[in-house]
């Protein structure tokens, strides 16, 4: 195949992003123009990047090139291989959807906010994301990584007038700087081992990396990437930052920005660090399970729609880590075949999660756009005024709960198969770890289903609870198109999973050195097999078609009676009370009450009821009910750490207490010490 113009389209895409950025900045005085420029150029750039990604994947062989940077020490070198192509494809798909969505969403900013600045930051964010995925040397990777964090900070704290947003933004940028600190040290270790800054040289030098070096590098990289991905002990910034960000930005954040952590892990663990020891894979798997279970448990207790979705990002990252962890374990236990299946499961779930999480956040955004509130206790009955948003949100909810025939089920099924294969193939402790992880995945899936029943039903079904959700209008057309584009992607990836899998072959060949695509697809391209000895087969296409075919007789059966006696509208059964209103409906807190009781050890729930009465306590005028669960990580881990640092620094302030004699004493003592001991060394 002649050289496809990967490099040119990629460079054109970057140029479009840069042009868009400065065009928006230039036109910040005229909001309408800025909005058109921002969305138009971003869409064009996303399309270009999408083509580049597709060409890159078709190309098969990685395309490498480098341009000299200002500082003659380092060149900016790019490598457009399968991994970069895949992640850039996800980015392009999401960027297109979010840009179309933003076209309608930003109309609301016109009077109040600076759209030019928003467009500038938005373009630079997408630009830096594209470079992060295509960077081929540590220097360029770190620059793009920090620019991404910086622009994401600018966008997260876009509504900076309320202190909650500012605090969340600062927490975000400080945590992301800590993780780039870890990455910096990790890269330095590798650069020292390989002598050069290029990723390719890391892989080669990984052989003679001493085991302690490799372990140190692994821990540093794992900490760095899991802070960015929001793995459990380091996740506290995610539920804080995503809800306060504008909805189209939190869609991008959850969809692709936390995936840079996953991309980093795939690139470094499989490419640059050589074969990692078994404990590394197990650590990843265990933290994956912890993130999945705790993520969904905390999500259940949220009644802020976007915080709920943020916690679900943590859960799905956990599922992805399960795939990655088992891939690492299989590789070191000498089962490249199983490792490839596990890696495909992880990468496919990354793609699926990116799409349905972005869809859900856009849905939540249009709900917020119409009603103005994120609190589910005030929403309800939105399915009548906003049928299209409700349908898209429903598809997203079914997909994220992993229910067939949509794409969430396919990747969770592949994860199950790799976990099952783990039981048979490995020995010792891991033999038990895999099935337990499998059952935890089942628990996560079921809890996710429960959580999204709550989210969808309380937000969209029954009667509107708060004043905000009464006279509500449907989201503008462009927002619906954005969501529609992602809904079709969900359905297509679900039903047509078997046609989509071959694109992972190039990636598994690059990272693990073998192609397993062929034995994953059997039965005339319809059935997905696990390609392992313990595996089963499933075909979402047949399930989908089966459901449709069976729908026909049942509809016939049910319509016999309905035609003759018709259907009547009647009030819901209200046990004889005078008319049922929205106060009697089940609320989000009530829905999650049984689970709060069952997992009370984890939540430590706290409840306060004050009855306000004037005559006697038995006839309360008002009852104030307040219940909250304990933010264990913030309270137990991060708050004491922060207090310790601040107390320490306040104590250290005494060094500069103002007395000149003390200052001179410091110098005197240092001089005497150095004179007596310094001279010897």
């Amino acid at each position, binding site marked *: 195949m002649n050289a496809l113009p990967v490099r040119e389209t990629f460079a054109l895409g970057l140029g479009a992003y840069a042009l868009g950025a400065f065009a928006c900045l230039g036109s910040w005085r005229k909001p309408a123009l800025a909005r058109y420029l921002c969305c138009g150029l971003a869409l064009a750039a996303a399309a270009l990047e999408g083509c580049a990604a597709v060409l890159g994947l078709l190309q098969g062989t990685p395309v490498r090139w480098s341009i000299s*940077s*200002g*500082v*003659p*020490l*380092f060149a900016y070198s790019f490598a457009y291989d399968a991994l970069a192509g895949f992640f850039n494809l996800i980015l392009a798909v999401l960027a297109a959807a979010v840009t179309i969505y933003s076209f309608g969403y930003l109309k609301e900013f016109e009077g109040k906010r600076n759209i030019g600045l928003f467009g500038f930051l938005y373009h630079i964010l997408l630009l830096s994301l594209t470079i992060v995925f295509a960077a081929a040397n540590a*220097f360029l990777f*770190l*620059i793009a*990584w*920090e*620019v991404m964090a*910086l622009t994401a900070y600018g966008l997260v*704290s876009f509504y*900076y*007038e309320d202190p909650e947003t*500012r605090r969340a933004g*600062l927490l975000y*940028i*400080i945590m992301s*700087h*800590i993780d780039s*600190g870890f990455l*910096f*040290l990790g890269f*330095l*270790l590798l*650069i*020292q081992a390989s002598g050069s800054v290029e990723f390719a040289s890391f892989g080669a030098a990984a052989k003679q990396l001493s085991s302690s070096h490799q372990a140190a590098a692994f821990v540093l990289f794992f900490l760095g990437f899991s802070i960015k991905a929001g793995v459990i002990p380091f996740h506290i910034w995610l539920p804080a930052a995503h809800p306060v960000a504008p909805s189209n930005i939190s869609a991008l954040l959850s969809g692709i920005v936390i995936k840079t952590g996953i991309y980093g892990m795939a690139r470094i663990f499989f490419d640059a660090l050589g074969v990692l020891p078994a404990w590394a894979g197990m650590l990843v798997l265990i933290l994956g399970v912890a993130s999945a279970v705790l993520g969904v448990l905390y999500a259940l207790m949220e009644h802020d729609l976007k915080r709920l979705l943020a916690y679900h990002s943590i859960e799905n990252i956990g599922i992805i880590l399960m795939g990655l962890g088992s891939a690492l374990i299989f590789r070191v236990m000498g089962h490249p075949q199983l490792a490839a299946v596990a890696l495909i499961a992880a990468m496919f779930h990354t793609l699926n999660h990116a799409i349905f999480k972005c869809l859900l956040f856009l849905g939540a955004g249009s709900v917020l756009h119409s009603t103005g509130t994120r609190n589910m206790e005030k929403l309800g009955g939105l399915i009548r005024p906003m049928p299209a948003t409700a349908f898209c949100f429903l598809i997203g909810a079914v997909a994220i709960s992993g229910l067939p025939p949509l794409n969430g089920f396919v990747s969770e099924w592949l994860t199950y198969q790799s976990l099952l294969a783990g039981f048979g193939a490995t020995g010792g402790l891991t033999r038990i770890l895999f099935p337990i992880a499998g059952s935890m995945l089942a628990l996560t899936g079921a809890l996710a289903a429960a959580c999204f029943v709550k989210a969808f039903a309380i937000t969209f079904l029954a009667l509107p609870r708060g004043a905000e959700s009464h006279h509500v209008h449907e989201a503008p057309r462009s927002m619906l198109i954005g969501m529609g584009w992602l809904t079709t992607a969900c359905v297509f990836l679900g039903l047509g999973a078997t046609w989509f899998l071959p694109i992972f072959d190039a990636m598994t060949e690059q990272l693990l050195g073998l192609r397993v695509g062929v034995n994953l697809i059997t039965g005339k391209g319809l059935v997905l097999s696990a390609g392992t000895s313990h595996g089963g087969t499933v075909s979402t296409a047949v399930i989908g078609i089966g459901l449709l075919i069976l729908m026909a007789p049942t509809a016939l059966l049910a319509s016999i009676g309905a035609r003759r006696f018709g259907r009547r509208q009647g009030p819901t059964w209200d046990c004889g009370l005078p008319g049922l209103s929205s106060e009697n409906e089940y609320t989000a807190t009530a829905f999650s009450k049984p689970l709060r009781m069952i997992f009370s050890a984890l939540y430590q729930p706290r409840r306060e009821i004050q009855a306000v009465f004037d005559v006697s306590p038995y006839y309360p005028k008002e009852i104030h009910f307040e219940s909250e669960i304990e933010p264990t990580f913030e309270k137990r881990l991060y708050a004491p750490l922060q207090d310790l*640092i*601040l107390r*320490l*620094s*306040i104590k*250290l*302030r005494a*060094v*500069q207490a103002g007395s*000149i004699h*003390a*200052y*001179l004493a*410091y*110098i005197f003592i*240092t*001089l005497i010490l*150095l*004179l007596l001991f*310094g*001279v010897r*060394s």
Partner: protein
Amino acid sequence: MILLWLLIVPLAAGPLAFILRRRPAMEAVNLTAFAVVLCLAAALGVQVVQSGPVSLWDGFFYADALSALVVLLSAFIALICSIYAVGYFRQDERDGVFQADGEVIGALGAYKLRKFYSLTPVFVFAMVLVALANNLGMLWVAIEATTLTSVFLVTFYGTKTSLEAAWKYIMIGGVGLSMALFGTFLTYYSAHRIPGTETLAGLNWSVLAVNATQLDKPTMRLAFILILMGYGTKAGLAPMHTWKPDAYGEAPVPAAAIFSSALLNCALYALVRFYILANRCLGADYPGHLLLLFGMLSMGISVPFILVQRNFRRLLAYHTIDHAGIMVTALGVGGPLGALGLTLHMTFHTVAKSLLFLCAGSVYQHFKTDLFHKVKGGVIHVMPLTGTVFLMAILAIIGMPPFSLFQSEFVILRAAMAAGHYVPSVLFVVFSTGIFAGALVHVGGLILAPADAAPVVRWQPWRNLPLLILSAILVVIAFWIPPPLFRLIQGAAVIVASGPVVSAR
């Protein structure tokens, strides 16, 4: 001949400004003098890059790539700050700052201005002399001169706190410089076995550097400790840093900007001169370990103070201590890469730190306070240009990648890891993360706070021009460094790593 003119012009500008009492005249003298000095410095740089070290009066004044770089940076900052000073003091006069302490109206104001406009050129003369003096004794005399001329700049406003800051400045500076003098004497003694060192040239750095291997080892070890303590005090390394926050917090902002960038470079220049001698005489690890110790101490001590700081000018002072620590660490790491990291960092830091001080100055003058909690509305609403430039500069100074300071820190850390200093590298990253958090929380809060209805400040020509120039430079050098400047930086790095290229007379 350039060297002579480089010295004469600033020296002459001082008394000339003193004679011409009226403000516009003094401003004009200052501006023209520093513009001429900048051109001369640029010419010197070009000549040194093309034809190697320049010397005058048989080696008494000697300029190689390192000194040319320091002179260029000092001259550039002096010009920028003098432009800013014009606007700054006009605003001070409008605000009646000089009348504030109720003494003699008018005359005192003029006297203060005369004091500033006459002392700054002499101060710049002293700094240029530091860079050009080949004789180590002359080097000491020049640095002592910088201290003496800058004391009255610190007491400019005449408030009680500025007096206190000045006293601490001169006392700690005096102690430091006496230690440096002692070190210089010991260096001179350690060269007593080398023939022909009785004459004046005996104390010339180029002579000593060439036959440094014959220096007396134990004496050099003691001498290096004393020099490190002495010039370290001028550079503000911990534990001798205590004068810096007071002096920078109290001095008028143009002076503080020059202190924090140009004076720091001169002190480091002196340290580097002796490091080269010690490196060739004692080997790299003895001076290296000492420098790493002081570097880590300085970075460590600045973290708590930045985390709980309440005054943004003092925050910038602690930042300078941190960056002094970074540069000394780079020197301690040594080797060609470490040296390049040092010279790169010196250049980038000079631009970024002076920009920060000038922004802080504008904010200070508008809000009449330098305490974070006293500044009501967000700076970005009241002063849009200053706010954005301040935010950009603070991001640059804490090492955010698109800007150049990240590149120099990358070089330094890579050199440190290559030399096997694992603990210092880890500490380096930890401290810079701490400082990142502290600086961003405080300055971010200052700039991005929500706006109450404060009127937008109108365009201030004199003060915004330097801001624009410096921020433009800051953005440009992040992506492209002009080749002649980069060759100068590389030449300086080669000298730091391996001593003088060719032995002057």
